[in-house]
């Protein structure tokens, strides 16, 4: 028992032995506060930029959808773009606001909150995977319809090729997203495992 106390005293002594030097090496409160203000500003700028970009892109698509009087296929495509923009903006907004929310819970509760958040995130990502699959199928259907029209009904116009090209690019994007979501699920499961063993 005495031996353990002695060794603990040694650790304690080492822990505080360089306090004075360390205190001098760390940035001054003024510097730290300036850095924090800068990060606060950057966070706000990022949120504002994401919102402005989202509103501009969304506004343009809505304008094209309702004033440009496009075909049904174009409307479906525009709706998908609109949904993607809304999702992107909402995701960046939520992740930024979550990252700057400070928790003053007890550690045990905080770990439980993190655990619940991770489990919720896994569910969200699984739903995202389903949405990506549906979107990919819809887009491939549009490509199929265009190909069918081109092969069996009438010659295709320039805009049909454009839509088919965009759709094909989108399907690659959705497949990429699906794989990324799968990777994210794996990472969150790892986090759940890590938090569960604590």
């Amino acid at each position, binding site marked *: 028992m005495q031996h353990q106390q002695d060794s603990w005293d040694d650790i304690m002594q080492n822990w505080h032995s360089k306090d004075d*030097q*360390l205190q001098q090496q*760390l940035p001054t409160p*003024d510097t730290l506060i300036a850095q924090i203000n800068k990060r606060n500003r950057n966070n706000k700028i990022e949120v504002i930029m994401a919102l402005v970009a989202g509103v501009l892109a969304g506004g343009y698509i809505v304008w094209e959808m309702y004033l440009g009087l496009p075909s049904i296929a174009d409307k479906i495509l525009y709706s998908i773009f609109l949904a993607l923009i809304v999702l992107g903006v909402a995701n960046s907004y939520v992740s930024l606001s979550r990252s700057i929310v*400070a928790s003053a819970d007890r550690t045990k509760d905080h770990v439980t909150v993190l655990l619940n958040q991770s489990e919720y995130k896994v569910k969200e990502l699984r739903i995202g995977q389903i949405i990506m699959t549906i979107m990919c199928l819809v887009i491939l259907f549009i490509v199929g319809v265009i190909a069918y029209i081109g092969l069996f009904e009438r010659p295709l116009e320039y805009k049909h090729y454009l839509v088919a090209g965009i759709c094909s690019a989108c399907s690659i994007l959705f497949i990429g997203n699906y794989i990324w979501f799968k990777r994210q699920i794996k990472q969150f499961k790892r*986090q759940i495992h890590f*938090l569960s063993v604590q």
Partner: protein
Amino acid sequence: MSNYQQAFESVVAKYKLSLFKIAATFEADPTLQMDLFQDMLLAIWQALGKFKQQSSLHTFIYKVAYNQAVSHVAKQSRKQDITQLHDHIACQRSDIESYTNTLQSLAHITSKISSLPIIQRQLVVMSLEGMSYTDMAEITGLSVSHVGVQLNRAKTKLKQLLEDK
């Protein structure tokens, strides 16, 4: 300067050393360590306005800082599994040792503390910072007797780790 900023400045002046040491036990990479240290201060800056004096400022500051550290470790655990994480920390230790001679003895202890489970790691650091069992129980959410048990286990484990070298 506003009162809020003044209050924050006094918190930074008083706690920056302890907060830096907490960051050092939760993150081995020197760059990420400074990021975590800043994240802790940022979290305290944002949380200070919500402080309602239900607990002491002391425990409030540590709760926010530890929660930020736990979130950081959890986030890091997503990138690699726990064994790889420990290997990574062990490998990054040499960077810290060359980082500054001042930290050499501290780096050795933090490397050993960082291999303990989160709650034990937290209890050891709080104990080294001279906190009472009641404060530790308030911050972690464990009962006072459980704090004693866990801290004792952590000390024994830490002693073994330091003896292994």
